[in-house]
């Protein structure tokens, strides 16, 4: 699903690499936590998977494609098979819940019939049935994140990338979000989630990858958060 072969990333005008010689593999259907302090390279790791950046050295394979070798105009094709969820939700404030989710399908040219069918379905899945016509501003943080997850999942991606999805949420709401992500993972979708949330990592007992100053320092099946900060 994801394979990093000796990947390093040096941003222009910076001497210290953001990632140093990272090699790892994520199999189909896995749930992986990505932990590490701020500046450890988590965001760079995710940006490389999304191909917002290119690796300086080594190869990044996602869904069997070498991201260093595909041309810019093919990148959208890869991204359609990925879902992304962020700490700050990134919803469109002037569109309703249903429109926000539908937006993800409209912009890749899905038919109206398809959209009418899949939007209520996915909103039910994330537990927002009946709130289709609300505006994001009227929802709680947890509900907004559910909308964002619905939008990320509506195109049935094979891989879900989450960048601190519970970072803005209280512990109880976070548990709800994690249950939802777990459910999505059980449908066969691979989930890679960067997080600082110790409780969540410790409770879920999933594979944990830890980065420190750009190096891969731990890769543990059924791991825990593992370090104090």
């Amino acid at each position, binding site marked *: 699903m994801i394979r990093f072969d000796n990947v390093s990333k040096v941003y222009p005008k910076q001497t210290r690499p953001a990632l140093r010689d990272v090699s790892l593999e994520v199999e189909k259907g896995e749930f992986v936590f990505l932990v590490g302090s701020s500046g450890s390279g988590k965001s760079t790791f995710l940006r490389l998977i999304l191909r917002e950046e290119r690796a300086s050295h080594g190869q990044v394979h996602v869904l069997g494609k070498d991201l260093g070798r595909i041309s810019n105009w093919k990148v*959208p094709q890869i*991204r359609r098979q990925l879902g992304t969820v962020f700490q700050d939700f990134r919803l469109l404030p002037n569109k309703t819940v249903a429109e926000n989710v539908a*937006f993800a399908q409209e912009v890749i040219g899905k038919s109206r019939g398809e959209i009418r069918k899949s939007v209520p379905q996915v909103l039910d899945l994330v537990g927002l049935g009946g709130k289709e016509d609300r505006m994001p501003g009227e929802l709680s943080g947890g509900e907004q994140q559910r909308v964002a997850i619905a939008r990320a999942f509506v195109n049935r991606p094979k891989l879900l990338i989450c960048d601190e999805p519970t970072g803005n949420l209280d512990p109880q709401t976070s548990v709800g979000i994690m249950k939802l992500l777990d459910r999505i993972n059980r449908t066969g979708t691979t989930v890679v989630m960067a997080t600082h949330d110790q409780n969540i990592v410790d409770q879920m007992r999933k594979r944990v990858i830890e980065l420190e100053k750009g190096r891969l320092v731990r890769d543990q099946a059924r791991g825990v958060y593992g370090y104090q900060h």
Partner: protein
Amino acid sequence: MRAQFVLSEIGVGLRRNLTMTFAVIVSVALSLALFGGSLLMSDQVNTMKGYWYDKVNVSIFLCNKNDAESDPNCAKGAVTEDQKSQIKADLEKMSVVDTVTYESQDEAYKHYKEQFGDSPLASSLTPDQMQESYRIKLKDPEKYQVIATAFDGRDGVQSVQDQKGLLDNLFELLNGMNWAARAVMALMLVVALMLIVNTVRVSAFSRRRETGIMRLVGASGFYIQAPFIMEAAVAGLIGGTLACAFLLIGRYFLIDHGLALADQLELINFIGWDVVLAKLPLILATSFLMPALAAFFALRKYLKV
């Protein structure tokens, strides 16, 4: 791609930047109106050239008895029959010459009377004061110089005159004005393009949230850029339509009505509606292609994949 979705995005974008959109429309309209105007002006000059060059001759004026006394070119006396027939023969041998007609002193006197019959000078004139001349029509009116070099200074020839020279001064003036119009047009065009680039960037910036999400869910670069490009194209097209209206109104009021130049200057044949209409597709095409291209290049930096 769903047309309705794209159209609604364009509408939102245009309304959001209403003042900028208005500025784009006005500058595109003015620059393209000038562009069309200068195209029509060159057409007008060409029509006039075609019309007048057909009527102009090169004239070889021959020495008469009076000239023999007063004009240094005719120091060797009035033209002789031999010289006349030699000139005629030489003219007919030249490949640039189309037709040669001879105007006798009597004919010249008659023409002069017709044109200036009322003037006091005309009544004191006698036929033998007039000059004989050869009126030469050239195949190519630009080749006047060939005749001039061949016959200027020859015995019996008083002067070689090209009527085209008189017209050329006028045409040069018109051409000069045309170039001035083009310079203004070029400046306006640059202004219009910069406005478009700026408008598109503002538009892209104010919608960066939307475009960011579009990128994440895998919308193609074209799909993300299309609303912005179409926005510029629609604004440009409105401007282009206005420019077309300016040209049509301009022809209507300058030539047929209002100033009614066609009535006042009967000697000039003006360009017809067909010529004006023929320019409109070009102007409309420019009006939306140019802003669309400008937007495309403006976005390359802002909306990277």
